[in-house]
């Protein structure tokens, strides 16, 4: 247990950065093979190094802090170092990021084979890795913010990778801006921290805060916590800032898997977990986090019910799952959140990659209504997706079951605001999750392939059609889009894509076993492992006698969850396999509600009408045309023309007539004389 060992943690993020730099600067002139090699080598090395560091980390006292010899920002007493921080939490995150990241890189090599801008893609992807690792490894909020913003940038670039499509460019921009709104709160939170604690270093800040008393009302800590949380809602796509994530599916599928499922979106969770000391002291903030998590989970799940785009379903599912994690954080069950974060990274990455494989196989189609029967055609994909689906639905002993169940249990039982309501919401969400996932499963892999058929649903949702047509047109005309592979027939993906799927599938299955709760005879080892990093200081050890009853209760709740998952499976089977005509009838019956859900509750439109449009109108008509051009410039130019006006009036003195000139002299003279006489007399 030595403390002065230097792990050179900076190498971990820097390796992908080097890859990004090489590919970004020179990639245009490099052959594809070299590009692949560079991308994989550097991420792989990073992963390997991360593993090594993790192993080392088990030998040294955590948290382990390293600072580079030069500071990033110095202003008086305020220092921000390039500093890295390794504890259990960041170890887990680091491993997830490098591991899943590496797998997805591998997958991408196959997936992006036929796309233009190969080097660009990998440069961006490596850049993302760099920022994400910076985020999880930094030892202060500001450096974390670097990663925070940086992953936003990478996400912007990758979402807009197919920039020829307006929708992709729009989605990228939307993601960045919405994230910025969250960042805005994060920044203010940091300002408050700096103002009150004089530092942004985790150790210093947390030390100061842990000495302060629990905040009862709405004080500073609550405000800070809420601001940080708001920042997290942006990055982790929570209500009200979730809107960017579904649109982000415009990006290539590996990107969706890596950034918008496995890693980046979990940054918010990580940040809350990292800041748990602040949240622990601010119970009101925790409540808000829990409520937002619960609301998001449910809300997103309902939206997932009606989506027809396979990736969008997964996107809403991601939002919903992130809601779970938020919920966990909100009840101070940080280790549960991180646990779910990890399993989610596995199975959701798997789902996305699987979906990618599906899309890849059928030539770029993403609408589930045109899929079906793919089970036979792409068996490997089918099986891995099946595993993932069952995992996310929460069937034991798959990993999702353990992690989700942990959250649900904590939502109910946590001493930090756990309540039945939260549990019920989570419970319903679990059902919904199961339903829409199996809906996806059935629609994609069962029945018959409906590719190229215009179905009834298409027309009834004509509103959606033009947009899609546009995509198709845009992609087709430039041969640049995802569906531009140009090889007919449904086919299984190459092994370079399938291998990561398989590995992820294994992880999805087994990844949860490190967190089997004691009630099920496990050791909850992840919980224990993370405890030093995230355990709430206020967390009181539960009395031993209570534990037994608690355990049985926990088991009972787990039973409920499995039950509701099964119910979801049944309904999906009924509606999308057994009687596929039913859904249309039902939607016709509840047309109003369905439409609302289908259109994602019109939230985007609402934001547009409420904020974007008025803002643009205000800027154009009031500020620019009004204030700038009319009032200010009007005043300025008015002063100019007024001067000229005065000038032209004054010029009228200059009549050209000698007699009138003399008269001016005379009257002027009279005035002068009059004044002087007055002076003289007054003397």
């Amino acid at each position, binding site marked *: 247990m030595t403390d002065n060992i230097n792990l050179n943690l900076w190498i971990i993020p820097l390796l992908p950065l080097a890859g990004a730099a090489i590919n970004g600067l020179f990639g245009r002139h490099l052959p594809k093979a070299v590009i692949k090699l560079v991308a994989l080598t550097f991420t792989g090395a990073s992963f390997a190094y991360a593993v090594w560091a993790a192993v080392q980390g088990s030998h040294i006292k955590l948290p382990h802090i390293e600072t580079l010899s030069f500071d990033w920002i110095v202003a008086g007493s305020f220092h921000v170092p390039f500093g890295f921080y390794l504890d259990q939490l960041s170890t887990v995150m680091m491993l997830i990021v490098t591991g899943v990241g590496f797998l997805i890189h591998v997958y991408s090599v196959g997936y992006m084979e036929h796309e233009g801008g190969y080097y660009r893609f990998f440069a961006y992807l490596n850049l993302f890795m760099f920022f994400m690792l910076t985020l999880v490894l930094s030892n202060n909020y500001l450096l974390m913010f670097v990663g925070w913003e940086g992953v936003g940038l990478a996400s912007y670039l990758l979402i807009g990778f197919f920039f020829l499509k307006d929708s992709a460019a729009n989605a990228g921009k939307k993601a960045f801006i919405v994230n910025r709104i969250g960042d805005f709160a994060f920044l203010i939170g940091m300002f408050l921290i700096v103002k009150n604690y004089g530092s942004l270093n985790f150790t210093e800040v947390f030390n100061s805060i842990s000495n302060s008393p629990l905040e009862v009302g709405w004080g500073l800590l609550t405000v800070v916590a809420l601001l940080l949380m708001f920042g997290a809602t942006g990055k982790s796509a929570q209500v009200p800032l979730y809107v960017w994530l579904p649109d982000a599916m415009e990006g290539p599928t590996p990107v969706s898997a890596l950034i918008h499922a496995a890693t980046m979106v979990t940054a918010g969770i990580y940040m809350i977990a990292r800041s748990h000391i602040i949240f622990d002291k601010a119970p009101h903030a925790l409540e808000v986090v829990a409520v937002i998590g619960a609301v998001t989970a449910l809300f997103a799940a309902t939206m997932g019910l009606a989506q027809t785009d396979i990736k969008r379903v997964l996107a809403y599912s991601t939002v919903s799952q992130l809601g779970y994690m938020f919920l966990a954080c909100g009840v101070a069950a940080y280790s549960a959140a991180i646990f779910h974060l990890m399993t989610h990274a596995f199975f959701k990455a798997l789902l996305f990659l699987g979906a990618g494989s599906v899309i890849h196989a059928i030539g770029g189609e993403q609408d589930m209504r045109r899929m079906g029967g793919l089970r036979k055609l792409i068996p490997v994909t089918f099986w891995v997706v099946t595993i993932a689906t069952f995992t996310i639905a929460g069937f034991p002993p798959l990993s999702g079951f353990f992690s989700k169940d942990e959250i649900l249990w904590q939502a109910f039982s946590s001493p930090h605001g756990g309540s039945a309501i939260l549990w019920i919401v989570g419970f319903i969400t679990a059902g919904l999750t199961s339903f829409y996932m199996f809906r996806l499963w059935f629609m994609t892999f069962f029945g018959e392939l409906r590719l190229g058929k215009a179905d009834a649903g298409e027309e009834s949702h004509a509103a959606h059609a033009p947009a899609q047509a546009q995509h198709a047109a845009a992609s087709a005309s430039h041969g640049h889009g995802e569906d531009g592979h140009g090889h007919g027939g449904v086919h299984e993906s190459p092994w370079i894509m399938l291998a990561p799927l398989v590995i992820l599938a294994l992880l999805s299955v087994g990844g949860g076993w490190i967190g089997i709760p004691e009630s099920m005879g496990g050791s909850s080892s992840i919980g224990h492992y993370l405890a030093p990093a995230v355990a709430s200081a206020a967390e009181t050890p539960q009395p031993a006698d209570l534990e037994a009853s608690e355990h049985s209760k926990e088991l009972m709740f787990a039973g409920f969850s499995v039950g509701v998952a099964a119910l979801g499976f049944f309904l999906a089977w009924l509606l999308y396999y057994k009687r596929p005509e039913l859904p249309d009838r039902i939607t016709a019956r509840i047309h109003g509600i369905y439409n609302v859900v289908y259109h994602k509750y019109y939230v985007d439109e609402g934001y547009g009408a409420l904020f974007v449009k008025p803002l643009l109108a205000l800027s154009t008509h009031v500020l620019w045309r009004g204030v700038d051009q009319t009032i200010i410039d009007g005043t300025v130019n008015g002063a100019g023309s007024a001067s000229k006006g005065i000038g032209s009036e004054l*010029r*009228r003195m*200059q*009549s*050209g*007539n*000698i*007699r009138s000139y*003399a*008269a001016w002299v*005379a009257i002027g003279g009279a005035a002068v004389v009059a004044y002087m006489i007055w002076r003289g007399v007054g003397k």
Partner: protein
Amino acid sequence: MVPLSWYLILSAILFCLGVSAFILKRNIITIFMSIELMLNAVNLSFVAFANYWHNLDGQVFVFFVMVVAAAEAAVGLAIIIAVFRTRETLNVDRVNLLKL
């Protein structure tokens, strides 16, 4: 005995009549004459003050004023001739090419 102020008042009246004439007359020559009238009025003041102060400087001054007036008259009338040649008029109201 005539009070000094009488002379001065007379001078002032003449001066102001000169000013009035300058402003009211249209003929350039007459206007020029009104200037001569003003100068005469000034001369009267000088002589009166010279008497008052028992100081002949005032009278010498008058002498110089006359010289200047003569020179001015020569130049002025030459200018008037030049104007008449270009304009064919002596009416000041018509000499207003330059204005504004």
